[in-house]
């Protein structure tokens, strides 16, 4: 069972979360071209290694988080709020970025 260090709740089992998708995707403007949208919605890299992905703490604080995970070992190296504003506030409060924190449960 993967355990995710939710920035708001602490270490929680992955069964409290739902998987979102590739967090590296930058969704285009709503009026962007069909090609840009097809690329964002359908084209994915099948990464063998570290990838950034979104998870929803749906049975917890209901926050979306960005998890940096090794797809081979499931090792998680960082968990950050997906919301940019909240991320900045949290970093200001704790004085460090969440990727610096010790990830060992």
């Amino acid at each position, binding site marked *: *069972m*993967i*355990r995710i260090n939710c920035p708001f709740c602490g270490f929680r*089992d992955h069964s409290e979360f*739902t998987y*979102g998708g590739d*967090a590296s995707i930058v*969704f285009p*403007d*709503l*009026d*962007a*071209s*069909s090609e*840009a*949208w*097809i690329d*964002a*919605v*359908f084209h994915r890299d099948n990464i063998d290694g570290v990838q950034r992905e*979104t998870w*929803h703490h*749906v049975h917890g604080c*209901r*926050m*979306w988080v960005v998890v940096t995970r090794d797809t081979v070992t*499931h090792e*998680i190296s960082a968990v950050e*709020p*997906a*919301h*940019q*504003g*909240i991320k900045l506030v949290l970093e200001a409060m704790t004085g460090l970025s969440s990727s610096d924190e*010790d990830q*060992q*449960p």
Partner: protein
Amino acid sequence: MTGRRVSTGGLIDRERSLEFSWNGERLEGFGGDTLASALLANGKSVVGRSFKYHRPRGVMSAGVEESGALVTLGRAEWSDANVRATTQELYDGLVAKGQNAWPSVEFDLGSVNNLFGRFLAAGFYYKTFMGIPPLEWGTGTGAWMWYEKFIRKAAGMGRASRLPDPDKYEHAHDYCDVLVVGSGPAGEAAAIAAADKGLDVVLVEQDSMLGGDNLVVDTSQSPVSRLAHLESQGIRVMTRTTAFGIYDNLVVGLLERISDHLTDPPTYLPRQRFWTLRPRFIVLATGAIERHLAFGNNDRPGVMTAMAGRAYLNRFGVLVGDKVVVATTNDSAYEVAVDLHHAGAVVSLLDARAQVSSILTDVVQSIGIDLHLASAPLDIKGRRAVRRLLIAKSDGSSWRQAFSKECDSVLVSGGWSPVINLLSHRGVRPIWHRDNACFLAGPTDEFITVAGAAAGIWTKAGCIKSGENAGNIASSAINEKSLYKLSPTSIENSSWSNPIMPLYEIRESNKKLKSFVDFQHDVSAEDVRLAHREGYISVEHLKRYTTLGMATDGGKMGNVIGLALMAEAAGKEIPDIGATVFRPPYTPVSIGALSGRSTGKYFRPLRRTSLHNWNIAHGAVMVETGLWQRPWYYPQPGETLSEAYVREAETTRHSVGLCDVTSLGKISVQGPDASEFLNRIYTNPFAKLPIGKARYGIMLRDDGVVMDDGTTWRLTETDYFMTTTTAHAAQVMAWLEELLQTRWSDLRVHVTSVSDAWAGIAVAGPQSRAVLESNVDNTEDISNENFPFMGVREILLKDGTQCRIARISFSGELAYEVYVPADFGPHVMEKLWTTAKNFGGCLYGLEALGTLRIEKGHVTGAELDGRVTLEDAALGKMASPNKSFIGSTLSRRSELLREDRPQLVGIFPKDRMATFNAGSILKGATSVVECGDGWITAVTHSPELGHWIGIGFISGGRRAWLDKQVFSSDPVRNMDVEVEIVSPHMVDPDGVRLHG
């Protein structure tokens, strides 16, 4: 073999006599016995029958690796199949019987299969019944379908009761610093060392008693005093608990057997408890399992591992035979021979090695044990018991039959396999250790270490030392958070004084013997060679073709032998063949324990609206829609479903009907940018929705397909109330959160699910306004001018209850949806119903709701199935041409705009008296070609039109089928009905009633 109880010794309680039943016979054992030890003490040797050949099988081990003594425990709904008699504790009143045999395990008619053994070799099923490609490609399966049930009856193990499990199970969670698995010398030392460092230690032991090997080798300290000592160190000890799997991030699955050993467990106790434990470090002191050897008839009752023979004597006070041959490839069996000799057995010892140091040989020979070097078992004579052992001598390169010995049991030690299964679960590949002839754990940087025999350490002193090391490693890994890596550590005096001989099979060249490798699945040495000859090179393929290692023991006894034979056949070394991966669980886990309390309604909880009891009290018949219980219909005395819903729909259209719509999803959307947010997610314009107005909206997914629909009401400048469909409420909420947090962090919007906060009541029909008027002080509030179609108002009822009302309609009639705080639901419903009754109104349920919406061609989840676009659903005009919204770009993909896509239509039967079914296929031709031309999503009898109607999708929509014959085809119920394709808006297409 005829086992018997010796007069003294063992860890059994001779004062506590236990009565149990074996195949209907009443037998006695003692407290501390396992079922296997009690059966042996009673002289029962044949206790099972094998999987394919129905060969008689006896007790083969004294532990979890047991492959012979598999029995069915309990009766009727309590019956539990494939229980290992070697681990089942005896209790008073235990009922057990043999399995896979008729009429009994002693005399089994199925054993004729043994005569046809050459036809039942590896791959038998595939070759015979699956068809031989390419000639019989696809044709063989027909024969398989026919024969399968006969074969399945003849082959197999115990049977499930097929009755619901009467026992209770629990799930529990826990944390600790260090988990130690196993309570033998290494585990005990590791736990104490870690606890000394101030760590919170959990020690789990699958056995009922602590001690591991000590229970067999050194019974001087009682398990009870071990427990007291460990607990005095603050160690949390769990016996009867198996660590069956290790998962990502060091999450460990434990199965605790709470009452499997109790005669009459208290009802408050669960049968088993499933623990999810999250330790910070794991010490595996899981020991090693003694290996068998492959030789002729090595599965006969009376053949068991050497350690098992010693365990039955020293722990259970049972001597397994009077004339015993101990056969070994290593030093470990010498002590077995000595112990059995002292207990009064006549013991012969065969050592496959030609040279052994005199220190060892003197020990046995000085007490008169008959020792033969360079000797090994070759074949056994005797069917249901061992009568004679043929013995082979080695000349250094091959084995040749030399002499034979009369005996009643054969105790075998073919070496030891460290239990590294749990590391295998983490993907750690085992590494072959040539000197010890076994697999050891490979490197890993997870916080796991291995101690004792599990690490290939064979001496007790070495095990204790390695346990202490492991405890210290755990402490430094946790406290210093040091980068840790598991790698072999060398421990002095950890191995035997004489090297093991790597021997797996004894046979004479060119002679075929019935030598078993995997006992449970009847896989023989010849099967392994046959698989090799037929080209199965990969060990994973060998496993699947022969089923080696795929029985309930998971290959604990046979895998290494199978690999060794495969390597020999291929002319390779074992490391070059590779090893199969052990997967969880280590020992079987009951399905009941996995599900815990999550069964029936606890697995799939009911959701009830706050009006639930009110609905029931007013005669509602309920129906499950997803998790929700909703009123289906409200029958009057003697009324059927069809009569009731037609009456309800008719009454609603002509006077007024009330319906509980509480289950709709409700989301509060608040913030300065709420309008902008809604404008982006809905296809139609929301930017300029006036305060006090509602609007019907549709959301698409990114790919342009419809996700959900509902109405959203503007309450204030910055406050909106959104409703969703019942089915998609949770999905829409998660989607809005995703958009706001991952894509549009700049939008100042907050969403809150308020589904449970509000009760909702639809008041529909021409008299609906009158019903509301009767319940408010100021009727002007309700007038058509002050409260027009799509208006939203906060209104006080006469008794002061505040309601949030929108004039919106799903039925197509003049209608309102009244929302009140959930707890006020029944009260307000009662008020409205009291008035509605006076207007001849009715309560209506989901069935009538369906009728009303089908008549209007309104879509629901049945139509919006995740494949349908706005145009498909005849909602094309809901897409604003003046703005971009989620899905707008991809909804214009050419494939989604094709004219021949299935489009929403209404359906009438050509013969207006005819009926037809939802789920039917629509087709133009007389026979269905591929998937037909369309499908029907919903049908109903329309009281308004006086005949059956339906809605569905057909290729090209209504225009493509004008003046063409169309049939509703239901191949399952063999019903073809000619239909007419009409507009989906079948009643009041211009919406006159809405605005009335």
